């Protein structure tokens, strides 16, 4: 007997794990589940392990103190050998983990895997998704920079809207009256102890149920799930058309997981770590905070919702969404599994994907944010000033100096909060322009108090020149008629 075998037997005599491990790995799975569609769960687990390992490595250097966190990140980036790479692996790992968990969820939903008897597996999975998002948010806070600081402010502002308990929740979340050292410390505790601990426990439960109940069979259109008969049918399937998980199906999991790890490493190597952006000093207000990729859709939603709908949407929306996810297996626990016969399920996924995608795309452009430096940075296009009078040029100056440009673009530069003004003279008459400038309205501030009559006249004179060549500016026909009747030419 060889020595290694002897050692193995010595341990197994005491641990007695060889038999159960063999049983687990060789349990029969339906042949057609050995598919590339069934690899996302194991890939999520592998990325989670990568996150644990890189997280521990980062904790060797990182200091969870409001005063020192930012500089310890700089140390990691610049002073510690390969510190930047470990940070990059952890950051890209988190992006990949959120993405893979979402893809896994969509696959499981479309393949009807949440139906009887796997309802609890799905519910635990929903909590795993929430914890993954919780890790993403708390991790973003630990990268204690300007975005993290103001992101916490946004989180606190949202939480403060909770009726009655709002102020208490804000202080509990911040660990005090302001965003400061105590806030970072408690997010560190959440990110490093509380949520990972729960994640590990829930992952074990999730896996245990996958093993006990068997992997969801490949859904066949017309093969309906019934509580009374499913267990027997599944048993028959694995008996007749089953194969041991190892090695029949596992090789795809292994190849995919390794490819994902390679992709994370490649991104980390090529793109490097995320931030940190500016030092988290609240007295530096020249900042435009933006959330990380997976929360960009929320950033867009918060800009586009009508003010009156914001609080209900923020407080009730997530509760409804989570409830729907949790109740899903009870609402449709039986019946058709195949996505080919579940058009509403497919359309729901598409609708959510398109919505989130559109919001994320919009958040990249952020047309609702004023361009804070446009008034001093973007020149008025030369062609718009060609052949203008002194008054009109004076108006162009007023246009720049009064920060109109921060919200209105000319020649496709400037803010997009308000409409582009390249052809505003075609849309509004002189009187309408004066009224709009002085009184504001339609989401524009009133400038009446901040413009002298001379400035208003000049500004409107300039705005009246903004029309395409060959297209006449808008005119008030009734005004012309009234002037004609009174004997004056317009």
């Amino acid at each position, binding site marked *: 007997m060889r020595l290694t075998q002897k050692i193995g037997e010595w341990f197994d005599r005491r641990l007695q794990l060889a038999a159960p491990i063999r049983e687990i790995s060789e349990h029969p799975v339906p042949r057609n589940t050995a598919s590339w569609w069934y690899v996302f769960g194991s890939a999520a687990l592998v990325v989670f392990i990568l996150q644990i390992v890189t997280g521990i490595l980062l904790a060797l250097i990182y200091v969870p103190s409001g*005063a*020192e966190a930012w500089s310890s990140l700089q140390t990691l980036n610049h002073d510690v050998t390969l510190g930047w790479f470990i940070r990059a692996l952890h950051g890209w790992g988190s992006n990949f983990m959120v993405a893979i968990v979402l893809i896994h969820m969509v696959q499981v939903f479309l393949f009807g895997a949440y139906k009887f008897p796997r309802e609890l597996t799905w519910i635990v999975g929903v909590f795993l998704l929430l914890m993954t998002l919780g890790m993403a948010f708390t991790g973003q806070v630990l990268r204690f920079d300007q975005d993290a600081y103001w992101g916490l402010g*946004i989180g606190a502002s949202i939480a*403060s809207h909770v009726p009655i308990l709002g102020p208490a929740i804000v202080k509990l979340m911040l660990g005090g009256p302001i965003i*400061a050292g105590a806030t970072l410390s408690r997010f560190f505790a959440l990110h490093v102890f509380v949520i990972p601990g729960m994640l590990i426990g829930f992952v074990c439960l999730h896996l245990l149920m996958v093993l006990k109940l068997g992997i969801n069979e490949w859904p066949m259109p017309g093969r309906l799930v019934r509580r009374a008969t499913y267990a027997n049918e599944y048993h028959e399937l694995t008996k007749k058309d089953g194969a041991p998980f190892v090695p029949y199906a596992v090789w795809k999991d292994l190849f995919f997981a390794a490819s994902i790890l390679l992709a994370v490493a490649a991104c980390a190597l090529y793109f490097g770590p995320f931030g940190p952006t500016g030092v988290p000093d609240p007295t530096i*207000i020249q900042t435009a905070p933006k959330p990380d990729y997976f929360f960009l859709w929320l*950033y867009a939603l918060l800009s586009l919702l009508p003010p009156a709908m914001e*609080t209900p949407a923020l407080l009730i929306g997530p509760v409804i969404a989570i409830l729907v996810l949790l109740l899903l297996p009870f609402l449709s626990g039986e019946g058709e599994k195949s996505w080919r016969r579940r058009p509403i399920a497919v359309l729901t996924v598409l609708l959510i994907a398109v919505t989130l995608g559109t919001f994320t795309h919009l958040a990249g452009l952020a047309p609702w944010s004023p361009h804070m430096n446009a*008034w001093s940075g973007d020149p008025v296009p030369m062609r718009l000033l060609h052949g203008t009078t002194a008054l009109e040029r004076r108006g162009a100056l007023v246009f720049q*100096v009064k920060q109109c440009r921060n919200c209105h673009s000319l020649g496709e530069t400037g803010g997009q909060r308000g409409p582009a003004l390249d052809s505003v003279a075609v849309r509004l008459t002189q009187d309408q322009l004066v009224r709009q400038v002085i009184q504001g309205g339609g989401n524009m501030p009133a400038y009446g108090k901040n413009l002298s009559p001379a400035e208003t006249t000049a500004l409107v004179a300039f705005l009246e020149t903004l029309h395409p060549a060959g297209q006449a500016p808008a005119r008030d026909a009734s005004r012309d008629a009234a002037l004609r009747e009174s004997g004056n030419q317009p």
Partner: protein
Amino acid sequence: MPNETMLSRRGLLMKLGILFNGLVATALAVPIVGYVLSSVTRGRANAYLAWVPLGRVDEFPESETRLATFRNPNVMPTDGKTADTACWVRRIEGDQFQVFAVNCAHLGCPVRWFPQSGLFMCPCHGGAYYRDGSRASGPPERGLFEYGYQVKDGLIAIQAGELPTPGASAALVRIGKMPPCA
């Protein structure tokens, strides 16, 4: 003779043991919950608020709005720079002031003052406010948060110490001496 309705000695001891553990757990839970909620319970009755000096009144020119910074009254050694806070000080005339939090009343991003157009603009979601802090446009549902202030011996002080948030702003605004007309 064993009786089904009778409790065995070991059964009783086990139940007593569970009860004992329950009592100890409850007794321990009181200080633990008290510790976890300490930041909430301390914040009641505006205990976090304090008068913070911003500087001499004549550092703020009349009818202008300037950025001022102050150190938060409750500081921990680990706070670092985060305990520094900025605010916008508008001196209307004489001892009449308005002191605004930099945090937008929408979601707390830092608003910037543009003296030329007399507007505060928020870089996040496009909220805008007039020079008196009232809402001009954008998603905010209200004007800027205002600190209570007092002027004594040529010094201006504000009542600060809490992050102003839109849902919980009632405690922060309208405390202390306010200008009669904004």
